[in-house]
């Protein structure tokens, strides 16, 4: 008998990566998840599974999450091989059980990349992203020194394009999707956002040099133009920004060869 509601019920098997700590050995473990309301979100399903594990005395599955509306970038998870799961342009927290079929085996793994060391189970350390931002992902503007906001008009097209890039939520799906674990989409989104605005010109060369330098230092791989990053991005940020960054980087490198002063003081890198 199926209850007469508009939502249906499904049962699945979760095949989850369990790893007690950074140095422990990891392994997949199967957990049945039964009679799930298909309107449940994927993370709500994990909440339910975790409550059951708690009561049976098994350690709950550690996973990162917070806003549960696709904007904070905390949730990760590679679901059936895809960072953020089957949906396009959404994060794991916006994935609903109606995307799966009754009887499915769902493989759940952490975002895997050398620059994202594993902490526990499905939680990884993405501090490397913060380090890249600290090196140059900003426009220096101390509180109190800003000019009147409408003093410098910004063409709507530039502003809209900057916003397209600025939407990046810093989740790391681009890295997890890339066979080289490259962070080019993440870095280029910030370089593109700030470089498109008149306010961002003063530090444009320093920014791209410092951010790319830190990206390399943190152990991210290079880009080989497969664009898996854009396909996995929950904000569908375009790989065009990578091309834009390459151009900026080339220009900045050439200019810095003639004027090393301007580039060497870049950020904290």
């Amino acid at each position: 008998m199926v209850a007469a509601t508009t939502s249906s019920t499904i049962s699945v098997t979760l095949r989850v990566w369990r790893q007690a700590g950074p140095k422990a050995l990891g392994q997949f473990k199967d957990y049945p998840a039964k009679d799930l309301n298909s309107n449940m979100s994927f993370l709500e399903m994990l909440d339910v599974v975790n409550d059951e594990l708690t009561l049976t005395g098994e350690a709950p599955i550690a996973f990162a999450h917070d806003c549960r509306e696709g904007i904070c970038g905390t949730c990760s998870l590679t679901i059936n091989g895809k960072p953020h799961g089957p949906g396009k342009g959404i994060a794991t927290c916006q994935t609903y059980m109606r995307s799966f079929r009754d009887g499915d085996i769902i493989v759940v793994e952490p975002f895997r990349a050398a620059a994202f060391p594993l902490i526990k189970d499905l939680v990884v350390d993405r501090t490397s992203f913060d380090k890249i931002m600290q090196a140059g992902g900003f426009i220096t503007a101390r509180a109190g020194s800003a000019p009147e906001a409408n003093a410098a008009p910004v063409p709507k097209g530039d502003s809209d394009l900057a916003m397209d890039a600025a939407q990046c939520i810093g989740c790391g799906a681009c890295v997890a999707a890339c066979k080289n674990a490259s962070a080019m989409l993440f870095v280029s989104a910030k370089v593109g956002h700030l470089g498109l605005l008149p306010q961002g010109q003063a530090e444009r060369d320093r920014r791209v040099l410092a951010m790319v330098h830190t990206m390399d230092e943190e152990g991210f791989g290079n880009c080989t133009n497969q664009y898996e990053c854009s396909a996995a991005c929950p904000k569908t940020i375009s790989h065009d920004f990578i091309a834009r960054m390459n151009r900026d980087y080339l220009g900045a490198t050439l200019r810095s060869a003639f004027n090393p002063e301007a580039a060497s003081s870049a950020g904290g890198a």
Partner: protein
Amino acid sequence: MATLDSKIPSGPLADKWRKHKADSKLVNPANKRKYEVIVVGAGLAGSSAASSLADMGYKVKSFVFHDSPRRAHSIAAQGGINAAKNYQNDGDSVHRLFYDTIKGGDYRAREANVHRLAEVSANIIDQCVAQGVPFAREYGGLLANRSFGGAQVSRTFYARGQTGQQLLLGAYSALSRTVGQGLVELHTNSEMLDLVVVNGHAKGVIIRNLITGVVTRHTADAVILATGGYGNVFNLSTYARQSNATAIWRAYKRGACMANPCYTQIHPTCIPVSGDYQSKLTLMSESLRNDGRIWAPKRKGDNRAPAEISEDDRDYYLERLYPSFGNLAPRDIASRAAKRVCDEGRGVGETGLGVYLDFADAIKRLGENGVRERYGNLFDIYHEITAESAYKQPMRIYPAVHYTMGGLWVDYNLMSNVPGLFVLGEANFSDHGANRLGASALMQGLADGYFVIPYTVGDYLAGQKPGSRPSADSAEFKAAEESVNAMSKRFLATKGKQPVSHFHKRLGKIMWDHCGMARTKEGLEDALQKIPALREEFHATVNVPGSGDTLNQSLEQAGRVADFIELGELMCRDALTREESCGGHFREEHQFPDGECKRDDEKFGHVAAWEFQGVGKTAIRNVEPLNYEFVKMSVRNYK
């Protein structure tokens, strides 16, 4: 009894802040680096405060429980940020923003604080644009505005439906810059579990590293809490799952007064609850009310599809009841109106707890693409969650807990009654009275961090001798650390039968039923019986698996839920004591015949600031009178 001196400067309203800045003591640049300031939280208020103070030369330590300072829930604010720029030439001014905010707050905020907020609002926009925040623009390249609830001018700046994200990333970029420059010492995955008070002054915090479980003591000359609101007391809310009250609650238990805890904002336009597994409710931005029309069927139990219900059978109740503000009536008013409609049996959807937000007229006027350009991402979110297209049929919406106007009591300097403890953003109670207007939370967070605290923290520090910080080995620090460790041990040792989440759900239901959109004496008294019982059951039967020396999300959550239970009790006590209706606090006993809030200015024209007396003991209710010198307290009228 705590002393509550609001320290509001004398003189004409419009001159108070200028005068106060001129009168505040300064710390000379060479001395600034001798002072250490701890900032807890890195949302809009925390990040902007940390970077601003670091730029001024103070040594700043920033503590964030998230894995990165870019995660705070400011990031989820959708609609916009208010500022009295008057770019639209539509009659806006500092005074009008001040007045709208005071009136929107149902005359329960301080005039002086709100006026200052309106004054610095324009600077915030300048600051954010300079940082590269990509606000929406007109074709000429100048900044665009939209209108928002509770105002008759267009003063809201926005970045698509992601304004909070863009403002937070701006503040995060400033914080990142100062971290990169070595001016701020950033501690991520670091949760504040206690405030350390030495000789009556806040001098440090106890921090647990969430990855390693290591507990450490940190000293400072001043402590700033910018840790957000406490709406997750209700379990289901639009807050992030990890948003919590632990920092402010532990500070309360160390002597800081908690002001107006019952003032909760229930946002009118959220996606309705669908099941008991649910972990979170999702907001549909108030900006949608610019073009969407809210309605319910005129007849009870009319369960026809919305398209089949003719114009004559529809009740556009906000337009009917509040013709001059219509669908842009303030949040508390719009929420209660939706509740009344559903209570009358006219609600829609599976549960009957919903009303329609309809874009058919807007699509006729602007075309589907026009609507997509304005609200596309919100329609997408709605579709992801409900699998329905709001281009084809109206959205179903219902009110949900969204913001808390109450918070730690602060004076005009944003300092609590514990000297040296400052509280910014949603964590304090100061600017929104009993109801916050849309697009004002972002404004307040950034005002506090960029433009208020840089002036007021110096005034306090100038009175503290440089280098007079107590040692982290002093008795107070050791005792605080021990109490934190003891609490973790207790949770882990209980080994009961119920996971933490069960208690959170039960607390949430008690709070929603008895301390939600409508409150009664009986209901609140009932809640005050149930919550202490729940607290005892929690401590006796909770199951927190694992150990304390590793990442343990159940342990984190146990501490937070323990605090929510205690705080929920105080909210009910506050709601019971406030025998009036105002803003988000609606006592059924106190209403006009048309169902509007009936305030009692004579008896309750004050701030209630509660002082901790011990768990299970009734807190002391201190009172700060609200003296309205410039605005007349009157019945709010949006008709």
